[in-house]
């Protein structure tokens, strides 16, 4: 049934472009209504990206953000999965930590800002920590719920085949809960990026976030629009890659 699948894929692609077009139209209309100097039009935003593209200082900021995100993402994944699995395995730990984490998830992380600045000062570590802080809670929550709700049959199979504790985690628990973990990672890494950029806005002189702050200070709305647009594209790209990976890894699973 290749033709049917191709047809569906084409439909999905078509839907995507229709949605994209609709967004651009709304954006353009908003720009006309509010005024070009505040809501920069799509065309001018793209033009401004072209300008930034040729500016060498821009790439310094861009690389700084990517590097900070790479650090923050790695720490977030390791920490979130580790915490999620260990808290999910133990009933008592789950019952104590779940409400705490839920509270933490809804807390605006900006309130923790002064504490982080006090410990890490202004610069690279502060924005990495800020990114981790945003991402680690959703990843932990998703992972520990997935582990908690894992079908009991898998634990029975593990016991039947006398799997070691290590094999039980690596070859039973993780593959069994991987689809749920991936949903957590998708959400978690997007907010990690957001956290890094927020961190740069207040605690760094480098990166797209600090560039954004600088542009706001100069009332350079074209640059603000261009950088914001790029961040959205980056986040969408990240999410799509994760979705693609998720599908790749689970072609056989339910």
């Amino acid at each position, binding site marked *: 049934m290749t033709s049917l699948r191709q047809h569906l894929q084409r439909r999905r692609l078509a839907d995507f472009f229709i949605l994209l077009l609709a967004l651009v139209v709304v954006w353009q209309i908003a720009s006309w209504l509010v005024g070009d100097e505040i809501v920069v039009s799509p065309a001018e935003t793209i033009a401004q990206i072209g300008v930034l593209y040729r500016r060498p200082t821009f790439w310094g900021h861009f690389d700084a953000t990517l590097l900070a995100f790479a650090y923050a993402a790695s720490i977030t994944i390791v920490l979130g999965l580790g915490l999620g699995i260990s808290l999910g395995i133990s009933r008592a730990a789950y019952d104590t930590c779940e409400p705490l984490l839920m509270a933490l998830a809804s807390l605006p992380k900006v309130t923790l800002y002064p504490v982080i600045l006090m410990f890490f000062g202004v610069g690279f570590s502060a924005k990495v920590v800020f990114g981790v802080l945003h991402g680690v809670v959703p990843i932990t929550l998703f992972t520990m719920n997935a582990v908690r709700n894992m079908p009991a049959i898998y634990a029975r199979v593990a016991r039947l085949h*006398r799997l070691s504790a290590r094999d039980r985690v690596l070859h039973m628990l993780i*593959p069994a809960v991987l689809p749920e973990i991936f949903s957590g990672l998708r959400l978690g890494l997007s907010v990690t990026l957001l956290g890094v950029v927020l961190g740069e806005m207040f605690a760094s002189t480098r990166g797209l976030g600090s560039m954004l702050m600088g542009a706001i200070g100069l009332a350079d709305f074209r640059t603000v629009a261009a950088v914001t647009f790029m961040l959205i594209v980056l986040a969408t790209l990240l999410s799509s890659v994760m979705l693609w990976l998720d599908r790749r890894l689970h072609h*056989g699973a339910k």
Partner: protein
Amino acid sequence: MAVPQPVGVLPEIHAECRDLVRNFGGIAGGHVIEAMGPITLEIRRGEFFSVIGPSGCGKSTFMDVLAGLTPPTSGTVTFEGLPVRGTVPDGVGAVFQEDASLPWLNVWDNVAFSLRHDGTDPAEIKRRVDEAVAFMGLRQFAKAYPNQLSGGMRQRTCIARTMVMRPRMILLDEPFAALDAQTRLLMGDELLRLWRETGATVVLITHALDEAVMLSDRIGAMSARPGRFLDIVETGWPRERDSSILARAEVGAVSSRLWGVLREESQKALDQSGRLAAAREGS
């Protein structure tokens, strides 16, 4: 190949249960559910033993305790002379009532799963898995994932996964419950073939009377919960047998003797569940 028991020699005991009881609940003053027992039973080496009983009588619980998956509340289990307590002994394999195929692995890798975790070398794994996959008629589906298979094929995958471990005692908990009657008869034939060719002891849990009668050397009829053995019937079938045995005249006698026991117990089980439902509605 197992050698038939010489006449007049006592059969060798493979597994033994003494005063086995398993309860659930009762923590922090909660209500205690007596799931099973007391059960005292000897399972002979190389025999095909079936357990039959009304639904909810504790058959799965019995299998779990016998396999060492859960410890008994009281009483003892021994396998090959050694006590079993809460861990599965080497040489015991089990197939669960629920679908226990692993959805992230294809059929071949599902079957290889247990061997990959006990240090068997890759060449030996390949030999045994290929053999088991072929034996269970899954060769064309070796690369398929469980969600692409029928319930029967998934269950066969699980049987193959147990087979490759070369267990000396295989416990199967209603492995064909989800299948239609005809397919079940055919699967029964395959199970007999497996039993004959491996010489293993088989303990089959079922709620189908005809299945138990056709397959077994001995059949234990269980009471309503808490399940105990009320009668154990010896069929005396030859070792070389298949589903055509259902045409024999003796089948009727064995079935009616078992049904005489089970009828009353099934009624009790029905009343139990009715009372439970009523109690739940009332509260």
